[in-house]
């Protein structure tokens, strides 16, 4: 099926992009840091398969997957990560700080949530029909700005969807050490309806996302979508304190395997080769691009 193939391909694109990225660090082509989306691909693929191209998205430090599923060009992202003038934001932002069309990201946990809330307000005032999505992780439930925003979004009935990707860890901190009480209760307390799924099956996620996106677009007010998932790679480039057993155990939930079972072997190979070509082109092209230079802007 076309639509199963498309979902698979999106997930594969994210997977291969992130893998390539991590490997480029060892070649020294990349500096700084990055947060790979590997393991969580079904979230982004599912959600962006039911949003509109003009919807507004605020993403966080783990934004590559969101960006690619949003429809962003791998080449422009690769160029940004390699610090090239042709990158999404000319090399100024890097991995965590990107912007393209209606997609934005920033590297401060929680700080993006009120910003996204304000975007939703603007779209509502301007009656554009666009909804706003903002992505947070389980760890970001620690930040106060989130709750200030939930309150405001609910009071003003803003068309915003809070997507909580619970990959069960914040950097090295397991949710038991970071999150008291219940995740859904955090939204419900503000009168914000909650859709919650514990799955890496992109079709389940897609259908939950479809319901929440519809609810928000209907104008009823904000909604939240809690997706319990797994991160397969380390938090960033650093070490991963999880046990090897755990890393093996969670691989059974690989969204590519789960959804791949719905595709024929030919479809999988086709996806693989198409994605490979795109990724390779992206990184090779980006690598040939010039580095940015600073204009003569400010006195020294």
């Amino acid at each position, binding site marked *: 099926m076309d639509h199963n193939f498309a979902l698979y391909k999106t997930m594969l694109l994210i997977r291969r992009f992130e893998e390539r990225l991590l490997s480029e660090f060892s070649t020294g082509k990349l500096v700084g840091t990055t947060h790979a989306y590997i393991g969580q691909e079904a979230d982004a693929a599912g959600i962006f398969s039911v949003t509109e191209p003009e919807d507004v998205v605020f993403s966080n430090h783990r934004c590559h997957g969101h960006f690619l599923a949003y429809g962003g060009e791998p080449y422009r992202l690769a160029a940004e990560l390699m610090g090239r003038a042709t990158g999404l934001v000319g090399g100024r932002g890097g991995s965590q700080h990107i912007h393209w069309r209606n997609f*934005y990201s920033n590297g401060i946990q929680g700080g993006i949530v009120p910003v996204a809330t304000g975007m939703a307000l603007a779209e509502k*005032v301007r009656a554009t029909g666009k909804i706003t999505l903002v992505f947070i992780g389980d760890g970001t439930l620690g930040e106060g700005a989130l709750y200030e*925003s939930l309150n405001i979004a609910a009071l003003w009935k803003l068309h915003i969807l809070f997507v909580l990707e619970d990959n069960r860890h914040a950097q090295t901190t397991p949710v038991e050490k970071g999150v008291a009480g219940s995740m859904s209760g955090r939204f419900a307390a503000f009168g914000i309806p909650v859709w919650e799924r514990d799955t890496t099956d992109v079709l389940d996620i897609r259908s939950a996302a479809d319901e929440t996106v519809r609810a928000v677009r209907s104008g009823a007010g904000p909604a939240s979508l809690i997706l319990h998932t797994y991160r397969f790679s380390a938090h960033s480039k650093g070490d991963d304190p999880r046990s090897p057993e755990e890393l093996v155990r969670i691989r059974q939930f690989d969204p590519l395997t789960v959804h791949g079972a719905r595709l024929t072997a030919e479809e999988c190979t086709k996806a693989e080769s198409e994605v490979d070509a795109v990724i390779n082109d992206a990184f090779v092209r980006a690598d040939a691009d010039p580095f940015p230079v600073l204009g003569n802007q400010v006195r020294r």
Partner: protein
Amino acid sequence: MPTVLDRLNLALHYAMETDERVTMLGEDILDPYGGAFKVTRGLSTKFPKRVLTTPISEAAIVGVANGMALRGLRPVVEIMFGDFVTLIADQLVNHSSKFRWMYNDQVRVPVVVRTPMGGRRGYGPTHSQSLEKLFLGVPGLKVVAPNALGDPAELLAAAIADDDPVLFVEHKLLYARPLLEPGKGDLIDFQVEQTGGAYPAFTLRPADSARLTIACYGYNFELARAAALDLLMEHEIFVEIVLFSQLSPFDLAPLFSSLVRTRKLLTVEEGTLSLGWGAEVAARAVERMDGLRVRRVAALDLPVANAKSLEDAILPSVQDIVNAALSLVS
């Protein structure tokens, strides 16, 4: 003459009338209350949909304004007391001011955050500070302060029209002050020159050649004039005053012109001394001109106490300015 408060209020009315993107946000800003200092009075009656009273969530309010600005509106936020800017520091430093440059100039963030600063009303340590200095020099953020000489209405209108984020610092004691008229009252002996663009500076030149230059902004212009009068009457010392509306980025050209004449700089501000506005003013001045003499007058490096006897001792007085001026010319 209208008061500073009248003019600020008028500017908000005018902005909302002429630009439907302008939206007000803040705590308790609805009529009949109209905000803790009444600056937003009348707005919610006239523009009920575009005046949003908010929960007590300073960080989120500024964040929301950032988002609105990124998506085409022109929010104006009121933070009830300037002491609470500590709560919006992350939004101002890591969001508002960064987006434009960080996103490679592809966005604009036309946010205005207005807030009353300053003491001398017995409000105590968490409601009397002058914390604007925390945000002076933050790349991408402008800090602007009205005074009783320039038109606060024009200044605020310019801030709202600005494509970049502006922190607009209103001293509480200015609100009730009537606007000054050049050539009248204690301005009679000064020639007033206006320079700069949307956030002008004013140079007050006395009849005779001045022996020092006082640099100041906002409410402290009132103290500076009183000190200048005293210096003239009691000590026959003529003083130039350079009054700034734009605190940051630092654009000190009019000050440098004055210093060429006087070669003595006295900065005056109400915030605590260390790393206040005057520090950067002084540093730039001496980097540019060798052989300047410099003094700064500011609050003691202490919290602002509640008791008047302590508050008066902590905040800078006219006499402090006079003394510093005398030591400078001695």
